[in-house]
Structures are given as structure tokens and as C-alpha cells.
């Protein structure tokens, strides 16, 4: 315990200065601590905003980090619900670290079995345009604990299927028994008798095969003969070749004949054009004759009117 005399107090040299120094030290410590915590909280950093949309924000807390390759490059500022009921995780990214995030960056939200949830960013194409301020991205949720019930359910289903398969009355067992019976029959009687059920049918098949073999031998002989007839020295092919040569000569003659016919046709065309010109002249002649006839008819009418025997054509009223 401090033993301080009550009165009079023992004098302490420069007590006010010492007390002032202590006060100053306390002030320094308090202000330094406050400034350090503010710096650590990123108050003095220039940041840009990134909004991550998640179906479930469980485990996400304000202040937690967004990591890129294990390095913290952002900090969750706020979590809120949007109009559609999805969680909006608002992350502050310091501008000096923002270049790690690109348009094509992917964001994941991972919940571990032990420890806190973590938000990670992955950038596959570093040459993509940088992520703009206020960008909104969907976050992919990878939940280790959420996988366990699904895994257990799948494993249970698998075990049930295996049990069903390996049961004594299962279709697989029955199939195996059948296969065993089949292999026994195969061993005893051979494949043909097994396939057709009785011995007679198997014999017929063997006879058919033998006859087919004989038929093939005959066909072989036939083919040899046909070959000699078609491709032999006096074969059809040689004659065909000679015929083709003759046909080529005949075609040459025909081509010359056709050329002559062509000349003839040109001449006929010239005659036809002359005939067309004559026909045009005939049309003009006919027009003139018709005009003359009309004039003569007019003249005859005039003569009839002026002639004394002309009939009185005037109508007189009574």
C-alpha cells in the first residue's frame, strides 16, 4: 500500500511537469490507438463498391474479408435484403487493389466445417476490362456442410440399390442362375442345338450350310465361264470396243451432214425474210386498191344523185 503522509505532503520536484507528461503520454496513446484502429478499419482508404448477390448470407458479417489468392483485398461493409429477397453483400474494395478484379471475375462464398465463412474472388482473364465501381455480381455458394446431407442421402440410396441387387431373389441373381444354366447346356449339347431347341433343327441347319457351300462352288465356276465370255479374246468386251470405234466414225459423218443441213436452213431463213418483205408490199398495194375502190364507189354515188333518172330521195310531208 502507498504510504503517503496526510499532512504536510512531502514535496515532489516538478510535480506539475511530471503530471503533464503523464497526461500527454495518455493522450498520445489514446489518440494513436484511435488513429491506428481507424487506419486498420480502412477509414483513410479510397474505395470502390462491389455488390455481391447471394441466396443466403448466413455466416457473412460486416468487416469480414474478400480474398484474392489468399490476400485480403476487400472488406464487407454492409449486408441487406433487396426487393427480390436476395441478400446484397456490399463490399468495399480499396482502389489500389481493385485492379485484381476484372469483368470476368468470379466470386464464391464458402462455408467451412470449422471456422468462419469466406468470400473469395477469382480472375481467369487478367486482360479483361477492370470491374467498374458499383458492379453487381452473383456469388457462387459452396457449402461444405450443406453437401453432407446430400452425400448421406446419395450413399443411402446407393446402399439400398446394392442390397436390392445382391438380394437372393433379385433379378441379377436370377439372371446369373439362367446364365449358369445356359453355359451348362452349351457345354453339353453345343451352340446350335442350344439355339434351335432340338436336334432335328440343328441338323437342318447343318444340311443348309452344306448345300450353301455347294452352291457357292457352282457360282464360282459360273463366274469363271462368264469372265471368259466377257473378257476373253473373242469376248463381248472386244466386240463392244470395235462397235464403239465404228460408232465414232458414223457420228463424224452425221456431224458433217448436220453442218450441211445448217447451211440449207440459213438459206431457207433468207428466203423467208424475202417473203416477209413481199408480204409487206402486198399489204400497201391492197390498201391503195381499197382506197381507189372507195373513191369509185363514191363517184358512182355522185353520178346516181346527179343523173336525171335519179330517184327522188327527198321525203315530203303531206
Amino acid at each position: 500500500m502507498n504510504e503517503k503522509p496526510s499532512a504536510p505532503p512531502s514535496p515532489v520536484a516538478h510535480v506539475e511537469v511530471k503530471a503533464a507528461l503523464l497526461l500527454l503520454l495518455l493522450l498520445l496513446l489514446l489518440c494513436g490507438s484511435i488513429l491506428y484502429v481507424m487506419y486498420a478499419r480502412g477509414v483513410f482508404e479510397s474505395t470502390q463498391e462491389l455488390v455481391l448477390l447471394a441466396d443466403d448470407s448466413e455466416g457473412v458479417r460486416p468487416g469480414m474479408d474478400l480474398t484474392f489468392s489468399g490476400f485480403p483485398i476487400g472488406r464487407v461493409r454492409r449486408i441487406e435484403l433487396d426487393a427480390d429477397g436476395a441478400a446484397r453483400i456490399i463490399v468495399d474494395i480499396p482502389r489500389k487493389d481493385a485492379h485484381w478484379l476484372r469483368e470476368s471475375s468470379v466470386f464464391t462464398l464458402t462455408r467451412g466445417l470449422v471456422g468462419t465463412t469466406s468470400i473469395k474472388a477469382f480472375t481467369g482473364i487478367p486482360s479483361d476490362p477492370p470491374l467498374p465501381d458499383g458492379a453487381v455480381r452473383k456469388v457462387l455458394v459452396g457449402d461444405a456442410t450443406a453437401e453432407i446431407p446430400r452425400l448421406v442421402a446419395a450413399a443411402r440410396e446407393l446402399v439400398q440399390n446394392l442390397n436390392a441387387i445382391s438380394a437372393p431373389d433379385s433379378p441379377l441373381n436370377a439372371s446369373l442362375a439362367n446364365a449358369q444354366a445356359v453355359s451348362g447346356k452349351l457345354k453339353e449339347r453345343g451352340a446350335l442345338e442350344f439355339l434351335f431347341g432340338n436336334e432335328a433343327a440343328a441338323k437342318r441347319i447343318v444340311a443348309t450350310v452344306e448345300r450353301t457351300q455347294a452352291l457357292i462352288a457352282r457360282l464360282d465356276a459360273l463366274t469363271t465361264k462368264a469372265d471368259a465370255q466377257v473378257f476373253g479374246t473373242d469376248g463381248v468386251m472386244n466386240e463392244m470396243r470395235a462397235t464403239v470405234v465404228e460408232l465414232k466414225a458414223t457420228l463424224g459423218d452425221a456431224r458433217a451432214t448436220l453442218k450441211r443441213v445448217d447451211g440449207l436452213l440459213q438459206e431457207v431463213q433468207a428466203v423467208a425474210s424475202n417473203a416477209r418483205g413481199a408480204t409487206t408490199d402486198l399489204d400497201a398495194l391492197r390498201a391503195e386498191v381499197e382506197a381507189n375502190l372507195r373513191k369509185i364507189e363514191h363517184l358512182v354515188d355522185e353520178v346516181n344523185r346527179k343523173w336525171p333518172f335519179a330517184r327522188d330521195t327527198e321525203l315530203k310531208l303531206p
Partner: protein
Amino acid sequence: MSPSLSREGTLSELGRALLRWLAGWWRILFLGALTLVLALSPSTYYRANRQALARNIYLDTAPNLLWFTVLSALISLVLIHIVVVTAVSYGLAQYALEMVVRVLVLELIPLTAAVFAAVRVTLPNGTEIAELRARGEFDSLQQRGLDPLQHEVLPRIVSGVFCVLMLASVASVLTLVLAYLQVYGFTPEGLARYTRDVGRVFNPPLALIFALKTFFLALAVALIPVASVLYDLPRRARTSAELQGLVRMFLAILLIEAVSLASNYY
């Protein structure tokens, strides 16, 4: 005596005890308010009083600062080592630092500083005040026209508060430095990550609760021992008044701790 009369007597005794207990708390609160008003009043800081204040602050804090710093550094080193080694062995090394900061800086150091200051400074101050009253020096001060509250009580309460704040601040900063050195060693390479981890722990609500807790702990340990002996009669069992002050102080510390823990983790 009939049983009913005896029961009534017990009840009335209990009622009186409760009233005394509540009156004691009221006196403490009243003295706290009075001290605050006096501390904020410029008329308190006349030359003689200023010297008394400076003397109390220096004599109460400076001799304890070194000892407490050394002790808290040793205990912190041991605890940090235990926490880090345990966390690494469980594969949770990334949470070791956060745990060290939470357990030591936020919880243990303010409490230790408050208890240390109570034992070394404020409880002896309470005894001194009780002795002064017993010797009748308060009356003589009043006869000389001096306010004993301003002249004797206020400097002791202010120095008690200052002592707790000083010890807690120095030990906290030292523990943060030691934690960094234990985890990263003598290299500045881990400073950025360490700063980020510290920033993650000290979110605004937690920092506010930490500051309030430290301040109220300091106020409790500085005020209660003095207030408990100030208003009781000098001749009436002085030891019992000091003991009462001690119990009240630990009750207040417990209450502040409980409220801070509930605010932080619920």
C-alpha cells in the same frame, strides 16, 4: 417475544438494511456526479489545488506504471504463446491473433488494470480519506474556508481514474506489439495483415463498448472506495465501511464486466 413480533422485527431489520444499502449506492452516485461537476469546473484548478491534483496523479500512477507494465507483459507473453500454440495445433492459426486481441486486450487487461489500481491506489486513498475525517481535518479545512471535497477528495478520485486509464492503455499497446512479435517475429512484413486483423476485431460497436467499459471500470474503482468512507460516521466501524466499499467495488466491476460481455457477444 411472540413469533409474529419477531418476524416483523426481522422484516423491518431487512427493510432498514435494504434502505441503507440503497442509500449507500445513492451517495456513491451523488458523489460521482459532484466530482464530475467539480472536475469540469474551472474554479477547481486554482494553483494549490492544481498542485495537489498533479501530485496525486504523479504519485498514484508513475510508481505503478513500470511494475504493472512488466507484469502484464509477462502474463501476456505466456497467454499469447499458449493461445498461438494451441490454435496452430488445431489447425486454426488464422484465428490465433483475433483470439489474442479479444481475450487479452478487450477482456483481461482493462479488468487487471482496474483491480491493480484498486489494490495499489484507490483503496489506500479511501483509507486516507477515512483517516482525515477521523482526525477532523475536514472540519479544519472547512474552518479555513476550503472545500475538503475539492481539496482532498477530487484529486484522489481523478488520479484513480487516470491511473486505470493509463495502465490499461500502456498494457494494451504493449500486448498488441508482443502479439505481433510472437506471431510474425522481428519483421515488418506481417504488419499489413496484422493491421487488417486488428481492424477486423475492433469494429465500431466493439470499440465503443471497450472504451465505455474501461472508463466505467476506472470510475468504479476510483469512486466507490472513497465514497464508501466519506459519508459514514467516522467513529462507526471504519473497517466495516472500507470492507463495504470493497464489496461494492467488486460488485460494480462484476456488473460492468457482465454488461460488456452481454453487449459484445449476444
